[in-house]
């Protein structure tokens, strides 16, 4: 409590305008950063005036600092120039540091903020503002091929953790002067940079202002990834369904911008957010546009069908076995009944247990150190597959149901969408086990009501089906072939 109060008091003084004494400013800065080990200041001489050059060694690359600042400043000590005022400093900057990006900070806090984003500070005695020069050169990851949203044919670049790189990746694909990037900052502790991108002639003003509003209204302590932002700005009433797409492919982001959507890029996250996103968008993959339209349509249909299968297959199986054995083909019933003879668990228990085991296996697969990579699939295949059937604990047809369900769930191109399906599946399984097919229909009704009530930035979640938008069907389940657009 006392610490935080002391800090607040200190911050108060830090927000005051700077005085002209360079030593004093340096002291204040040092105090604010708590004499951090990566804070480095060196005295310099510009003509008759002296000053300090401060950097954070962890944020500004030494090599670029050398090239950008030390070289131009080398000769200035011997010159007869005197820098005593802001005007003279500006004149000096124009002469020596010409094209480098810069800013002036009037308070210690501002100066510290610039320092923390990788700038070098030039504090000159007798000037009441601090010159901040962008140095950058921070080590970043190179652009790599996408890991999660792969395509066979098409671009093989993905976003990285660096905001600038990501913006450049989009800008490279849309050489359009109307492409806008707006900066936001969020996270009281992290001060994360967020960029909102849209195409001024495509995106509706109301949509952009809605994004702007939600981004500025964010009040959180920390943001580490775009998923944090997604949670807050989607204002989601659903526990299950995402209303923003997260993408690692610049081409998809660019195409979304052309369609009039907004893109949110968060510094430090290789996934950008795209909104508004409706149900159908989660079944589109970038690869759909790089293959023949018929094939793309077939694949999308398969994805829709497989999602439905993965939702309903276990529930349907259990309800048919429990309540509607007359619906099973006769010979299949003989086989199922034969396999179930002498099995210690009822079908429902076995089905839930096997599905849970599969979930565990999946979780283990993502957690396991890559050195042990082979262990999990082998254990899964042997334990769940052969051994369970041979031991008579579960029937092989049940295993087929569980495996088919999991396989179908993997066909959806957006992982966050397919993973929620797993949760709903358990609910439906319960309904089906208690109430039979009637219960499944209750589940379908509830699910439909829920989906219809959802909105993504003002767009109903089931567009273009409910409400019906005939023209939007050209690129939802179908993919209409590209054509030369009419000049008229």
């Amino acid at each position, binding site marked *: 409590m006392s610490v935080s109060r002391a800090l607040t008091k200190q911050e108060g003084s830090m927000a005051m305008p700077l005085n002209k004494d360079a030593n004093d400013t340096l002291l204040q800065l040092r105090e604010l950063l708590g004499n951090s080990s990566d804070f480095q200041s060196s005295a310099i001489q510009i003509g008759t005036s002296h000053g300090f050059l401060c950097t954070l060694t962890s944020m500004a690359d030494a090599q670029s600092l050398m090239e950008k600042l030390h070289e131009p400043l080398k000769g200035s000590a011997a010159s007869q120039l005197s820098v005593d005022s802001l005007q003279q400093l500006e004149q000096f900057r124009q002469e020596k540091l010409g094209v480098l990006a810069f800013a002036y900070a009037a308070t210690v806090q501002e100066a510290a903020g610039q320092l923390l984003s990788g700038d070098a500070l030039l504090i000159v005695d007798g000037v009441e503002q601090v010159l901040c020069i962008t140095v950058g050169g921070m080590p970043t990851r190179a652009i790599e091929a996408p890991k999660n949203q792969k395509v066979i044919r098409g671009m093989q670049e993905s976003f990285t953790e660096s905001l600038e790189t990501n913006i450049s990746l989009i800008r490279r694909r849309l050489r359009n002067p109307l492409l806008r990037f707006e900066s936001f900052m969020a996270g009281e502790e992290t001060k994360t940079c967020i960029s909102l991108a849209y195409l001024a002639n495509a995106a509706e003003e109301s949509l952009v202002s809605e994004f702007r509003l939600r981004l500025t209204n964010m009040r959180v302590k920390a943001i580490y990834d775009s998923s944090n932002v997604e949670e807050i700005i989607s204002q989601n009433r659903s526990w299950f369904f995402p209303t923003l797409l997260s993408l690692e492919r610049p081409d998809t982001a660019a195409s979304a911008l052309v369609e009039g959507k907004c893109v949110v890029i968060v510094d430090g996250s290789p996934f950008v957010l795209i909104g508004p996103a409706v149900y159908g968008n989660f079944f589109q993959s970038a690869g759909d546009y790089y293959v023949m339209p018929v094939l793309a349509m077939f694949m999308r249909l398969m994805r829709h069908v497989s999602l439905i299968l993965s939702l309903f297959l276990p529930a349907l199986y259990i309800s048919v076995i429990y309540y509607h*054995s007359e619906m099973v083909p006769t010979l299949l*019933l*003989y086989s199922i*009944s034969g396999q179930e003879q002498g099995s210690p668990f009822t079908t429902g228990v076995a089905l839930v247990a096997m599905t849970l085991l599969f979930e565990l296996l999946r979780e283990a697969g993502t957690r396991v150190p890559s050195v042990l990579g082979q262990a999990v699939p082998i254990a899964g295949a042997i334990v769940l597959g052969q051994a369970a059937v041979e031991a008579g604990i579960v029937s092989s047809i049940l295993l087929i149901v569980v495996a088919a369900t999991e396989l179908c769930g993997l066909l959806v191109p957006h992982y966050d969408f397919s993973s929620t399906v797993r949760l709903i599946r358990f609910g439906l399984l319960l309904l089906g086990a208690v*109430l039979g097919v009637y219960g499944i229909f209750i589940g379908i009704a509830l699910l439909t009501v829920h989906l219809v009530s959802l909105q993504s930035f003002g767009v109903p979640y089931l567009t273009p089906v409910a409400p019906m938008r005939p023209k939007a069907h050209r690129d939802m389940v179908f993919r209409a072939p590209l054509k030369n657009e009419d000049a008229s």
Partner: protein
Amino acid sequence: MIRRTIMIILLGSLISVALTGCWDIRTANQYVIVSSVAVMNGEKFNYHVYLQIINTMEFASGKRRGNATTYVLDGEGNTMNEAFFKIEEKAGRKLELSHMMLLMLDEKLLTDEKGLPFFDFLESMADVRNDIQMVVAHRIPASEPNKILIPMVTVSVGKIRYELDSVAKNWGGTPNVHLKDFIRDITSDGKQPVISSVTIEHPSSKAFNTEVLKDTVQSTQIIADGTAVMKRAKLLGFLTVEETRDVLWAQNKIKQTSLTVPCESDKYVQVQILHSDSHVKVDYANHRPNVRIQINVKGDISENQCRTIRLDKINGYSKTESITEQMIKKGVEGTIEKVQKEYGSDIFGFGEQMMRQHYRSFNKVKSDWDQEFVKAKVTVAVKAKIQSNGIVSKSFLNDIPK
């Protein structure tokens, strides 16, 4: 207040939904699957019921022991339910009746009056499908076909079912009656029901053992055997497979068939009927029903043993057509006459046709339609059209030097 009421209604419905579920839950290891039911006269009680039960272990790859795929349990009772309950006791589990394929009735059961109350049970029982096939066991006890083992076929009643379907479709030798057809006919004013009949060739108790499956000679066979003629729920007698085809011809139920037509003494021409179409006109004139049946058939010749029929000439075809027409006409007229004289039961549904065509005159005579049926004047006209003959029109029989 309104909110409270809504909450109570919602909660109540939720609780009722959760608590009333599961009442009819059945798991696959808690029931035995019944594939057919056979009913005979009981000794102490009214009915003796035999159920063919599937030994499902033989259908699961890991659990097969090489035992018989089906077994038979029986029980007696004054009502069907009583008999079923006794069987359930023997099985130790619930009976799963929804996959029952066949209902087999004994000749003797149907000749007395005990058959009728029995059908009520089948119609009112929720688990039994109303499209199960019905057969009468001819010359054998109804319990026997259940017990027979047949190679390549895992369930013997399944074989009967497929056989009836295929015979009805490809030859027309069985009426292939389903329960719902039977119930409809038994309640109709202008039609009497029929049931398919099956029999066993060379019945032998050896066929009850799995050892028989290892033999190369399978003498014991279940075969379709024509029609059981009924008057309401009472069995009157049987018609052969050939007569059954005539009955179906008079009802426009023949899809395909094959006729062996005599052309010279002990020589035959085989006519494959590929399409058949019958029109029945019934009216009432001179105090008797007047039935006119027009049968149009199209077909091919598949075999020709007669030298007199030259299929490279047009008159060969016209000759075949005329002898085919005569044969069909003779057969259909003869069978109708036989049914009129021997059984006096309108299994052809002429009454129903009359009801459709002359409703008022039928209403006057419907109370004793069967007597009217016996008096009916029946004329059959056949038009046959033979289109082609295999792949060679000029038979080599004519080229053999004498």
